[in-house]
């Protein structure tokens, strides 16, 4: 039992296992945190869906492949495959996920940016609430 739990340097294998998972979590946590922040702050289902989708993809693709690899090898693999991974993500995100979000948003009648040219309205200004944004936060 002891041999099963203890590694060569005497540390408990379970701790090493947790440490490695924490390294992976470091990658995922910012995305998860941001998704939560955006969800509660902006209540914007599209952004939330996007970030959640990104997080799930990273978990599904990266986790099984590199879950047992030590830090340096992990960084090396990420560096070597960065372009491929980015390209893959780009195709998935820009070609599949974003169009789905866009379609959903159009169904609910919301457009993000591309607005009609020459609208018959008095102003194109967007009024801002009379408050100072919280400068302690990056959003």
């Amino acid at each position: 039992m002891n041999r099963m739990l203890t590694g060569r340097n005497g540390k408990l294998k379970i701790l090493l296992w947790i440490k490695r998972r924490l390294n992976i979590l470091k990658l995922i946590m910012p995305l998860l945190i941001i998704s939560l922040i955006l969800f509660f702050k902006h209540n914007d289902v599209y952004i939330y869906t996007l970030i959640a989708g990104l997080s799930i993809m990273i978990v599904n693709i990266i986790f099984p492949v590199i879950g047992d690899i030590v830090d340096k090898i992990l960084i090396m693999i990420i560096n070597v495959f960065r372009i491929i991974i980015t390209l893959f993500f780009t195709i998935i995100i820009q070609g599949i996920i974003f169009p789905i979000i866009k379609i959903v948003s159009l169904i609910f009648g919301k457009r993000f940016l591309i607005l009609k040219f020459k609208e018959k309205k008095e102003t194109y200004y967007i009024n801002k609430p009379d408050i100072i944004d919280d400068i302690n936060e990056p959003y």
Partner: protein
Amino acid sequence: MKKNKIIGISAFYHDSAVCLINDKTVIACLQEERFSRKKHDNSFPIKSLNILREQFALNDNDISAIVFYEKPILKMERILSNLIEISPKGMEFAFKSIPLTVNRKIFVSEYIRKHIKGDYSIYYVPHHISHAASAFLPSEFEEAAFMINDGVGEWESSSYGICNHENITLTHGVHYPHSLGLLYSAFTYFCGFRVNSGEYKLMGLAPYGKPKYKDIILKNIIDYKEDGSYRLNLKYFDFHYGSRMCGKSMEKLLKLKIRKPENDITNEYADLASSVQSVIEEILITMAIHIRKDTGMKNLVMGGGVALNCTANSKIIEQSGFENVFIQPASGDAGGALGSALYVSHYVNKKKLSKIQQFSYLGTEYGNEQIKYILDEGGFKYYKLDNPALKAAQLISQGNILGWFQGRMEYGPRALGSRSILGDPRDKEMQRKMNLSIKFRESFRPFAPSIMLDHVNEYFSGDYHTPYMLTVASLKKKHRLKNQHITHNFNVLSEKIADIPAVIHADFSSRIQTVSKEQNPLYYQLIDEFRKITGVPLIINTSFNVRGQPIVENPKHALTTFLNTKMDYLIIGDFLLFNNEQNVNREKWKIENLIMD
């Protein structure tokens, strides 16, 4: 020791910069490009931070706050929203922007903590509020309306609101992708100039043309309301999903091809420049008039990259009805570092700083001992001067081109007499010679003059006090040798249309810098000595750099630029150098080598 230092940082878009302030004043503002030698460098300003530590005695443990000039997650939200909107198009755009967005927007605090040690708070001031603070707090107004126009911040590309000493309140904005800055950049691209750096070339080209395309632009490309708010017709733009600013649809509408940089500039492009300049001016004036009426303010402060359009600035000052106008000289993103730091100092820490702008001489300085050491080490032949200003005036009046390196470096895009190349404005060949042999840039562009403040009315109409070269003035008729605005003639300046032809544009305008004793005593003395010799109280002042290079920052940069151009003389500190006397290994002093330092 008391922790009383605040650092403002702008980074990751263009023109990265840092600003260091304490409880009393601004200690230094530094632009990363000046040290990295990459023009408009947008990387995290590590080199500037190191200079703060080395030259301005910054100890990381004295820092109480670091302020970033925008809200990175809000900016990321805008970028992602844009990607959703353009999907499934924009694959190339997404490929470039997603990794950058994730790396640079999410991990801003990690970048900061990695490069600056110590126990401090991190703040994020909204982009346009940073611009507003950078314009309002140095203005010394008690209250003012602000008008900010740039490419884009987090979401806002244009905004206005009210500043006072209690608060800065942004009340109205126009959101990306609708943007006057991006409209101007799109036409900069169309005319064959580089986006984010060639906008001033478009402005310089405009007086040569007639606004023949103005109606087409207003009918098809931009729609604006009576309050100055506007919307772009995105059908004619590519910037929101591609690497180009505009494409074939714009060519089809204008019946004109996008100019390749190597091709000649024809009259059509001058007409196009004139047209878009006219459109921008019209909208900005409308916006400013509305802001005055809506806010009821007498004072206006301006910032954002569009506020570097000096022709538009002059018209806003003349026509908007505001009693006083202040424009931040570093109104591009570099100024965000100053604005964000000032915001936290003034509104969070409640410290009222004095002498904030300091005529924009907020950069590094090198003493005679340091300069002498570099000259000796490099094997340069030089002469010690007792009166550098007098010698400089004599050399300029004899038709020589002079490099002038003195005092603290300027913060912002303009050389204001610290890192300048100077010449005689009376010489009709000077403009061509300086453009082609020194600056290696287009020959149609005139230079700006530095004129003694107490003599400005002798040459230019209006009551001008423009120490930052942010407005244009019209040459008085008695100094004109021709009567009419001359268009479609790119050689107009060699025709001698005025008695100071090298600094006068085809429409008799000039982007003047007024110089007072209080502002820069040595530079004022130089111009005064030139006046005593020639009777003319102004000289040509252009930035000390060559095309594609940032302004020189240290003596080594100055010497390298001096050796690689046909500049006749260099006065650096109290030392005079003749270009034709230098027997140094010029291979070692190549401009390309500076980037490797």
